[in-house]
């Protein structure tokens, strides 16, 4: 039996090292977390026409997502209902049906069993085809981003995202026609636990200056100053971190949306043109976020960098390995040349051969595999940076941390991780809706800080 209070200590801001290594922890994650959460599948822009399909994974389950003939999205397990063989072996395409290679059973784009060879002669027309469709998966979209869920009792995708949707809307609906994902995804193997990159993206502004010193040195510009943590910067005035009810969170560096891009002319112009529209539609607080650079994770395993615009899923392959899939986010109404520039720069920095991605991977592998040693695996990891310097904010929902270099959203991720791992059902989780933020006890942090800031401004 796993002791959940020892696995994650929200008061001390620590996690047992077992979270990166133990098989029984992983097995419980598969059941309690991946079996109950909404998992990213694809984007509607990649399933444009009826009959379009993609194949993906929900952890280690192979999944087909289709645009059915009635225009709706369907998702089902890629395993024949007869003997379990895959019914689709392509990454994507357009089809009327999926035919199993083994005995030729034919399934429609809604997963229904539509034809069986020798049905009359050898099954004597007695096969109950209606009950032999492919196993279907609950599928919903948020602003075109398609997610699947194995749990019928889980809240809607919109409720699962909760306040995180309020933040996502900043760029998903703030400007023009919204966004799309550019694929096909790059895919690579990283020998690390799935939570290492998830926690890194959800809230690790701290590593940027050191891990990425080489790339920042070459890049120069706004981010060059972070290289090697040399510059004297007022970090508490440069951005924030946020965590929300279901563990989704992010850190934002103000005014840095386009900072990583070398050929940024088109992107900068697009941002300048659209910012007033975002302010008009969604208000100033989100217009400010719109111009920031975000590092984010949608619980449990979908991470992205808004601004740099790389979008990733970490598919677990056991406790010590993941498959990394990477797409690029672009705004639908950007010009083709601006879209191309963004794709190129996103990939150059955070694609499979990305100059910043290259720095991260090794840290993630080492942080996992040191735990092979039983003595290394004893004890806990620390994520206490900025603890107490966080709370409810008048403008921004969730719990807001004082700086983009802090570990507020780490703590928020592991808080919900522990909650999900401990809960027997979504009803148990719903029962905590009112008190989930109790582990962030400094309720007046922002009230006091904003009052001090305005007093300071008055003095001047």
């Amino acid at each position: 039996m796993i002791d959940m209070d020892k696995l994650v200590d929200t008061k001390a801001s620590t996690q047992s090292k077992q979270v990166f290594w133990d098989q029984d922890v992983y097995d419980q994650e598969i059941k309690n977390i991946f079996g109950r959460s909404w998992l990213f599948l694809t984007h509607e822009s990649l399933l444009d026409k009826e009959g379009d399909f993609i194949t993906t994974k929900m952890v280690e389950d192979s999944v087909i997502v289709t645009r059915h003939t009635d225009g709706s999205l369907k998702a089902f397990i890629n395993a024949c209902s007869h003997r379990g063989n895959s019914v689709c072996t392509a990454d994507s395409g357009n089809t009327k049906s999926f035919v199993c290679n083994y005995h030729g059973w034919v399934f429609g784009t809604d997963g229904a069993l539509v034809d069986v060879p020798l049905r009359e002669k050898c099954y004597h027309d007695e096969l109950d085809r209606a009950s032999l469709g492919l196993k279907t998966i609950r599928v919903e979209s948020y602003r075109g981003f398609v997610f699947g869920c194995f749990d019928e009792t889980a809240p809607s995708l919109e409720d699962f995202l909760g306040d995180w949707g309020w933040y996502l809307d900043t760029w998903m609906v703030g400007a023009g026609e919204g966004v799309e994902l550019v694929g096909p995804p790059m895919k690579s193997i990283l020998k690390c636990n799935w939570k290492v990159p998830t926690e890194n993206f959800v809230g690790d502004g701290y590593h940027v200056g050191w891990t990425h010193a080489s790339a920042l040195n070459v890049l120069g510009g706004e981010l060059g100053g972070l290289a090697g943590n040399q510059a004297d910067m007022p970090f508490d005035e440069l951005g924030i971190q946020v965590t929300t009810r279901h563990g989704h969170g992010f850190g934002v560096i103000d005014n840095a949306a386009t900072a990583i891009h070398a050929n940024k002319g088109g992107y900068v112009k697009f941002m300048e043109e659209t910012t007033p529209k975002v302010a008009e539609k969604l208000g100033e607080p989100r217009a400010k976020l719109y111009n920031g650079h975000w590092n984010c994770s949608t619980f449990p395993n979908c991470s992205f960098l808004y601004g740099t615009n790389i979008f990733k899923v970490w598919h677990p392959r056991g406790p010590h390995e993941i498959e990394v899939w990477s797409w690029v986010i672009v705004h639908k109404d950007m010009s083709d040349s601006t879209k191309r520039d963004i794709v190129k720069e996103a990939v150059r920095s955070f694609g499979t051969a990305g100059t910043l991605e290259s720095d991260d991977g090794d840290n993630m592998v080492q942080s996992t595999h040191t735990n092979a040693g039983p003595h290394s695996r004893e004890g806990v990891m620390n994520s206490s940076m900025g603890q107490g310097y966080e709370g409810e904010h008048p403008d921004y929902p969730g719990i807001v941390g004082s700086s983009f270099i802090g570990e507020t959203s780490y703590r928020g991720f592991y808080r919900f991780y522990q909650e999900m791992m401990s809960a027997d059902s979504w009803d148990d989780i719903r029962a905590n809706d009112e008190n989930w933020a109790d582990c962030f006890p400094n309720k007046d942090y922002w009230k006091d800080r904003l009052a001090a800031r305005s007093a300071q401004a008055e003095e001047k």
Partner: protein
Amino acid sequence: MHNTEAKERVSAQLHYELSQHYYQEATLLQNAEFGAWIDTFVAKDLHYWMPVTERRYAKDKRPAPTPYDMAIYNDNYDEMKDRVARLLTGAVWMEDPRSTVRYLITNVEAFHTDNDDEFVVQSNFAVYRHRGQLEHSEHVGCRQDLIRKVGNGFQLARRKVSLDARVTEDKNLYIFF
């Protein structure tokens, strides 16, 4: 950009020279002499491209990827030079101690083009990367190059690198192919 037409095969002498050029290039990369490589073996109008190629059914008539599509590498000369500069900063922590990278370059087939000084050259590669104690990876694929005769040597003007694997079995691919 990458569709220069290949004409007749080059002579044995020219084939020998081009093969030697590839071995020298591999030696520079193996020795981490990236500065010498980019300065002398690479043309200023370089396009270095590693497309992402999906697994698709034979009946799928969508066109093959172009440099306007998703790609792992899609760099011009200055962008490659920035990659080299990063590797030479001394701040790439995972390269100290250094990895060893070994190149096996084979199946070199070289063809004339409409330009006397340019050749289309195809080659296969196996690249082995070892690091630390037991860490290793291998990458197999082919390259389609446009190679230009410059002085007594050759320079790379276009390179399309095709990896055989759909999923890259490595933590990153910042090595050059």
